[in-house]
């Protein structure tokens, strides 16, 4: 087991005052909070910061931690003898999250001793989890096997983690950020009370072609300059099939064409937008160059900087 240097995590000195610790925590928490910082790794960092603060902000826990720290041998695999004995802590009614604390924390302070369970709640807690799906799953619906770890309580109130697998049918038409409610699949009930619900938040795996905004899906479509000028019939890949799109003659770069109802399906299905992008062929020579020159000669009156001339 690795010793965790909570002072280092918060970037404060060992003799930092309670105020210093609070300030350091708030600054770091704002920087790494997963609601504010979408970078990968932010959530893990935030949990470390939160754990460090949970210990250092509490005078009792901080004293116990300092005591262990003094007796800890650098590089030692084993904690000093008796290090987890005799510390008794109050409070700690945090939401039960099996991954909330490091092993180090749990060895020192125990695992969410659940005083919160003492007053029998009318109904068990709801449970939240995230599920990542592909855009195509939102078009067609999907089945997912989810492995969830949930605490269960035995007759003595001891906690053990139980793994369960849920087969979930994700309905077609679901959108990013929505929640699926699975009635009765949350935390188990107590004393015959009803179980909580399980909420699954939907996230979409990033897709190289499509960008999704609510129900609407956008695709960038590259065209040759002559296709944009003359109009063209182009095969457009949709998340769920493909369609022949006719591009009107004289289409400018960035023109947005709407395929009504081809977005994410639903009572009011979304639209699929095709944004045109004009790709240039390699620098021309020979006959190709002469063709472009002829084109230029025939368009002598066209001024691309004249807004009226642009479409």
């Amino acid at each position: 087991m690795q010793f965790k240097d909570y002072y280092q995590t918060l970037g404060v000195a060992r003799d930092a005052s309670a105020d210093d610790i609070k300030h350091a925590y708030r600054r770091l928490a704002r920087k790494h909070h997963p609601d504010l910082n979408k970078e990968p790794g932010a959530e893990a960092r935030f949990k470390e910061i939160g754990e460090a603060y949970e210990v250092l902000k509490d005078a009792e826990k901080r004293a116990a931690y300092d005591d262990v720290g003094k007796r800890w041998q650098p590089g030692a695999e084993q904690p000093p003898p008796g290090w987890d004995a005799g510390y008794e802590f109050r409070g700690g009614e945090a939401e039960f999250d099996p991954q909330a604390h490091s092993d180090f924390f749990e060895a020192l302070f125990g695992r969410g001793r659940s005083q919160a369970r003492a007053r029998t709640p009318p109904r068990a807690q709801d449970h939240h989890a995230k599920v990542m799906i592909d855009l195509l799953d939102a078009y067609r619906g999907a089945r997912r096997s989810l492995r969830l770890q949930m605490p269960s309580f035995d007759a003595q109130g001891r906690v053990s983690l139980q793994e369960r697998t849920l087969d979930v049918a994700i309905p077609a038409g679901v959108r990013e950020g929505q929640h699926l409610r699975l009635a009765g699949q949350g935390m188990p009930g107590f004393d015959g009370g009803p179980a909580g619900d399980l909420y699954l938040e939907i996230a979409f795996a990033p897709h190289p072609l499509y960008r999704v905004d609510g129900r609407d899906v956008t695709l960038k479509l590259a065209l040759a300059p002559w296709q944009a000028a003359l109009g063209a019939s182009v095969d457009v890949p949709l998340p769920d099939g493909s369609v022949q799109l006719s591009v009107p003659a004289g289409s400018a770069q960035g023109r947005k064409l709407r395929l009504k109802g081809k977005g994410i399906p639903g009572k009011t299905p979304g639209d699929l937008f095709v944004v045109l992008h004009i790709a240039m062929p390699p620098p021309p020579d020979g006959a190709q160059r002469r063709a472009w020159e002829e084109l230029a000669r025939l368009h002598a009156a066209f001024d691309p900087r004249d807004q009226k001339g642009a479409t």
Partner: protein
Amino acid sequence: MMATNLSVLQIQVVEEEVPMSLAELCQACGAERTLVLQLVEHGVIEPQGDAPPSWVFAGASLQRTRIALRLLRDLELNLPGAALAVDLLEQIARLQRELGAARSGAAVG
């Protein structure tokens, strides 16, 4: 660790089909009633209906409430601060979508 398999039959998309009562929203977020009432007072969530017993929350309230509760707990914000942050986070998400639309994605064809 024990493992069990269960099949789930009843699934609802909260944002589409599940208008929530005050009690249901509290339950779904694991929040005290008084705190959720304060979130309403500060405009983080806006129920339909005249009085708490008849309030109905749109499904999207769930997301806003959960974010506000996390910010209150993790950043030790006060309620006006959390309300402001939730609004700003929504604005940022909208602007990022618009920015994504303006920027080029991957090309096809």
